[in-house]
């Protein structure tokens, strides 16, 4: 609530083009999924438009800041905006975590005949509750003729003996380390240590790429060796949707941090007292890290 004039930008073409790009992207995606041959073209044209608008938008915001237009009050608006954006992401993941909890704690036991509801044994005779769900209700009732089949193997906890050869463990190590390195990078820029900042942020980006590489390896392993796919009943569904959306967010976070690293290395951006572009990306990074810790326990260790 400080005084002084608040910078209200002039007219801008960014929002209308951003809306158009976003619309074209989803319109193309919907056409693509419905088997319309123009779908992919619209989708990629929209995606490119949207990316170009975002590029321009961020560069304008950066140059406004460097031109000294941003008062401390305006900067607070960006800080508040980023904080609430991350909260919205938390709630998005909450929907999928909630779905997993509901399935495991209530839906599957009920499907197996527990509780005082309808006796599902009539619908799915022989179905037994287990997690990971290897035998779907369809398989229990229809055997070989089942359409919804479970996986052949799951990603579960191998016991302490197999810990070091268990890929999710190394993924956790990589991501937790990266959260520490990005914190060191933040400390470095606050102490005006540019070299340390570039090294630590570079290491973070590298760790992000390593995580994504390992995650891709895990998916390939799941699809080719474990018979575990997105279509593998509710286990495959929740496994790939939770880890997949997390992976998509790690990808976004890595790109964000990479851009910040390039801004610092190539352009010398960020000052000890003015680095919110970087700090926002680091918040986002800590957020995807926390989500991973949740996933590690819920999807892997106790999954």
């Amino acid at each position: 609530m400080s005084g002084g004039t608040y910078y209200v930008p002039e007219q801008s073409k960014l929002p209308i083009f951003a809306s158009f790009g976003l619309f074209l992207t989803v319109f193309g995606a919907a056409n693509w999924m419905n088997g319309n041959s123009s779908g992919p073209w619209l989708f990629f044209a929209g995606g490119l438009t949207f990316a170009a608008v975002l590029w321009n938008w961020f560069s304008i915001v950066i140059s406004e800041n460097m031109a000294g237009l941003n008062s401390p009050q305006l900067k607070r608006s960006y800080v508040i905006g980023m904080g609430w954006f991350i909260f919205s992401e938390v709630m998005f993941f909450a929907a999928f975590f909630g779905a997993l909890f509901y399935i495991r704690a209530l839906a599957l036991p009920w499907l197996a005949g527990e509780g005082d509801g309808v006796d599902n044994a009539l619908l799915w005779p022989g179905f037994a509750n287990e997690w990971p769900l290897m035998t779907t209700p369809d398989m229990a009732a229809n055997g070989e003729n089942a359409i919804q089949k479970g996986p052949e193997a799951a990603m579960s906890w191998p016991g302490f003996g197999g810990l070091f050869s268990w890929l999710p463990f190394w993924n956790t190590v990589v991501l937790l380390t990266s959260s520490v390195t990005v914190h060191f990078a933040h400390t470095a820029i606050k102490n005006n240590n540019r070299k340390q900042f570039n090294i630590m942020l570079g290491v973070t980006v590298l760790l992000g790429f390593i995580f994504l590489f390992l995650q891709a390896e895990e998916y390939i392993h799941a699809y080719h060796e474990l018979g575990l796919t997105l279509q593998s009943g509710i286990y495959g569904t929740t496994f790939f949707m939770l880890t997949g959306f997390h992976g998509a967010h790690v990808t976004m976070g890595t790109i964000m941090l990479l851009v910040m690293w390039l801004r610092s290395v190539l352009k010398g951006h960020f000052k000890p007292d003015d680095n919110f572009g970087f700090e926002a990306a680091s918040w986002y990074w800590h957020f995807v890290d926390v989500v991973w810790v949740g996933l590690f326990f819920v999807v892997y260790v106790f999954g």
Partner: protein
Amino acid sequence: MAHGPAKGITRWLYTTNHKDIGSMYLWFSFAMFFLGGIFALVIRAELFQPGLQIVEPNFFNQMTTMHGLVMVFGAVMPAFVGLANWMIPMQIGAPDMALPRMNNWSFWILPFAFAMLSSTLFMDGGAPNFGWTFYAPLSTTYAPPSVTFFIFAIHIMGASSIMGAINIIATIVNMRAPGMTYMKMPLFVWTWLITAFLLIAVMPVLAGVVTMMLMDIHFGTSFFDAAGGGDPVLFQHVFWFFGHPEVYIMILPAFGIVSAIIPTFARKPLFGYASMVYATAAIAFLSFVVWAHHMFTVGLPIAGELFFMWATMLIAVPTGVKVFNWVATMFKGAMTFETPMLFSIAFVILFTIGGFSGLMLAIAPADFQYHDTYFVVAHFHYVLVPGAIFSITAGVYYWLPKWCGNMYNETMGKLHFWLAFIGLNVTFFPMHFSGLAGMPRRIPDYNMMFADWNMISSVGAFLFGAAQVLFLYNVIATIIGGKKATDEVWENPEGLEWTVPSPAPYHTFETPPEYK
């Protein structure tokens, strides 16, 4: 900073001005209100008599679905955001919204989203026909192909809502004039702050549930398919975890508007300001723990039925506090009955009727009788039409002179009110009776025994629709002419918005005012 609006169409396309964006939101909402209204009139025309007269059953289902979606996401929500855009900066003494470009982005997503949603009416297989609540598997296994477009339309309008809400929170937290502490903010600002929190908390959950649908439809997952270990009831849980707070998103700003209008025309300060704030927060909190009261008949365990029944009934307490405060504000006031006040008083009375039928529905064993009947339709239309729509209308009449500098014609305003008031009661009150008698909702044909009530409802619906054409006329007539409004417009109204000239200049409060 340029001091006047730009010329031509680019003023609206490229604007960063909260007043321009607020006007666009309001006009967009008005257009959607008429579109959704036409869908409603198709429904009422078909239901005028039993039997199938005018439309095919599948098209009837598309009408009920599109009516709900357009009214909720296209009419009510953008109208409140439009009022927020216009009024929040002016009420807290801010030069604009905190993030003006993102503000315009939030708006311009909506025309694209609704163009895409409306275009489904012309697609093979028709528009979504599974009800606005789009329960799986109706919306997945048995859905028309246009469901994919529906899903992506929901995605982008959700993004619009989240960005709008972030902007509102940043504005209220960061942009208040010196001296305006939280407990001095006008209630419209308070209710919107809490509404914005609800939006950011639940719109991502809506995005999540439509994403699950998308994956089930196109990518072979089994979220809502019991054959693979999923559960269609999971859809309802996730949907209503969004859906119930959504109901309050559509009513909390209404509380704020009415809390501004009643003191002005009762010529007394609002009774119980602090309790209004706490009651709003309590309602928002409770909205997160009552969602399964929409699902009493799906086979919840008895503990679930009881918890959600009692939690739902608790909402009556803070809501009762609010109604009491509005009545106490009017008590012994020097009341006059201009159009905004008429709509506000009707709000208090009719919203309370909707609240009471809500209490009836909250009783789990009784709900087994009411579920999916016209009683439910009567209930939620009594909270949404005299609740959300009347409060928006009241707000428009109340602030329109400030926006355009002209007074509306009081006689025409009152005519609009009485036609709308009579129309809505004739439409929706009989639905209580047809519902209690057992008439199911979302069915194009019905038993002869319901014929009288339905005919009355249909007559009322067309009367209500006609009244809204009068509203459109009143708004346009006021914008292009009419008696000049004074800066205060009303007699000693409270709030910073009345300290600026009428019409409000393009930029207000470029240097923050000192709030007493």
